[in-house]
């Protein structure tokens, strides 16, 4: 059934520059050159990409590695076939006037966290710091943060999760200057996990035709990414073109593209084993509620990237 040339890619969020590489590849005809017919399915807060993959609604998905590994343990064997993002863009952004200077100051504070699979790195981090997440003076009070930066602006939370390329900019857009804020990049804290990898179902990889299709897909996608890195302005325009909600603004997408380029810069598409291991170690270090309980086997493959990048 994989004999045709169509590939459906499930994103994990709405259309924005975070996914510029794929949109560029589509717009610039890179997929077409490979003979592929690619459909990009935008995501949203209610969409669990692994679920879509399991339901057969997509051939490949983008996902954060903690979430993908968790799905693997849940009995949905997904495999990372490419990792266009080298570094993590996740960080905590806090008001400086709360007196927070380091992770230990989080105690007694209120912190907004995204759930829906994105909470794993945070929980691991806190457990490594030995801070409980059940509130109280010795722990942090965790809020399930919505999809915007209001909780920080309204001061309902002392810190919120932001992405370097998205929410952080929104905070600045709200008129806050950088020196009013303190930020903690997960990357700097040593608890970064891999974001935005390309995953497929393990069983599909037994199918040679499918593999071949994925090779072409990854090759074209990476071409798209590198083009986007070099031409951020044009890439942002292309993303805007594909945004059907009509809610995105040009300034916002341009800045986002600039930040995204920094994250993809170090990757040629192939997963770096040490990055993988660092992610796994972070997750395994997770305290009482570990995301994964054991070292995963076969959660990634270089087969596709090797063939694509030869």
């Amino acid at each position, binding site marked *: 059934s994989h004999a045709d040339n169509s590939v459906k890619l499930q994103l994990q969020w709405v259309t924005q520059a975070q996914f510029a590489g794929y949109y560029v590849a589509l717009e610039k005809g890179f997929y077409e050159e490979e003979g592929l017919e690619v459909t990009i399915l935008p995501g949203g*807060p*209610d969409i*669990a990409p*692994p*679920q879509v993959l*399991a*339901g057969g609604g997509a051939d490949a998905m983008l996902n954060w590695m903690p*979430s993908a590994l*968790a*799905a693997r343990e*849940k*009995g*949905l064997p997904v495999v990372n076939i490419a990792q266009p993002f080298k570094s993590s863009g996740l960080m905590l952004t806090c008001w400086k006037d709360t007196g927070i200077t380091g992770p230990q100051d989080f105690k007694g504070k209120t912190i907004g966290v995204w*759930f*829906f*699979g*994105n*909470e794993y790195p945070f929980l691991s981090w806190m457990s490594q710091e030995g801070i409980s*997440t059940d509130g109280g003076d010795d722990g942090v*009070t*965790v*809020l*399930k*943060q*919505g999809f915007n930066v*209001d*909780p920080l602006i*309204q001061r*309902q939370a002392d810190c919120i999760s932001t992405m370097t390329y998205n929410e952080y900019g929104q905070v600045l857009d709200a008129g806050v200057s950088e020196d009013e804020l303190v930020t903690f990049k997960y990357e700097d804290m040593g608890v970064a996990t891999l974001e935005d990898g390309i995953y497929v179902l393990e069983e599909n990889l037994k199918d040679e035709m499918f593999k071949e299709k994925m090779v072409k897909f990854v090759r074209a996608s990476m071409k798209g990414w590198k083009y986007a890195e070099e031409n951020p302005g044009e890439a942002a325009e292309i993303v805007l073109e594909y945004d059907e909600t009509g809610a995105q603004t040009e300034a916002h997408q341009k800045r986002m593209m600039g930040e995204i380029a920094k994250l993809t810069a170090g990757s040629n598409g192939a997963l770096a084993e040490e990055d993988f291991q660092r992610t796994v170690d972070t997750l395994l270090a997770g305290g009482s509620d570990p995301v994964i309980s054991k070292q995963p086997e076969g959660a990634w493959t270089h087969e596709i990237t090797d063939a694509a990048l030869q």
Partner: protein
Amino acid sequence: MTLVAAALVLWALLWLLNVRLANGSASGTRAVQLGVPLIFGLTLLVMWELIVRGLNVPGVILPAPTEIVARISRETPTLWADFRQTFLKGALSGYAIGCTAAFLTAILIDRSDFLRRGLLPVGSFVAALPIVGTAPILVMWYGFDWQSKAAVVVLMVFFPMLVNIVAGLSETTQMQRDQMKTWAASYWQGFWKLRLPAAMPFIFNGLKISSTLALIGAIVAEFFGSPIVGMGFRISTSVGQLALDMVWAEIVVAALAGSAFYGIVALIERWVTFWHPSQRR
């Protein structure tokens, strides 16, 4: 495939049983009246189980009922904590505030025809605001804890209640009102002794509708920001963790709580409006 076939056969058998029960001589008895819907529900569950197993539906898409039950028994404390947060704190307080506010507004509207003609159309417009739009706003205004959930519930139940109370208060006949006039009764005498009791069937109609809305409202509001407890929180995060059995466990709790709430209101209704023809046999 055989499991699926078995499911269909079972469906046919249990349905036949129900038809016989419903049309049989014992159909008026309490046992049958409870039994028939239970058998029907059981049929659905067994079909679900057999089809999920028969078609090998992955658990991350649709878990089998047995898995859900297992999850419920394993996670009872979590479910209870969520229930307390969402239902007892968010839904119930919102329900109480919303119904009370609607009641007071209804009296106001009742006393002034001008307000009735002005407020009701505007109210019906406000009632049409979809909860997925209002919930984020209210979370922004009232914070992440149950207060914002209660606010969403208030907004959801207010208008259905208002409409029903207003309709109920005008339910009295001309004759009954004239009677009060011939006794030279004051507004409040007429209100407490005639119009309020006469409005009870309508008020309970509103209370019943609102009882299902309240829980749904509280759950949905949690999708837009919450502390890390609550039924809506658990549902949305469990979907992200692909713990679909947990999602369904919460849905079961929601359906049970919602139905029980509805049932309790219906029981009180029986007791208060015992005199209404629909409650007499």
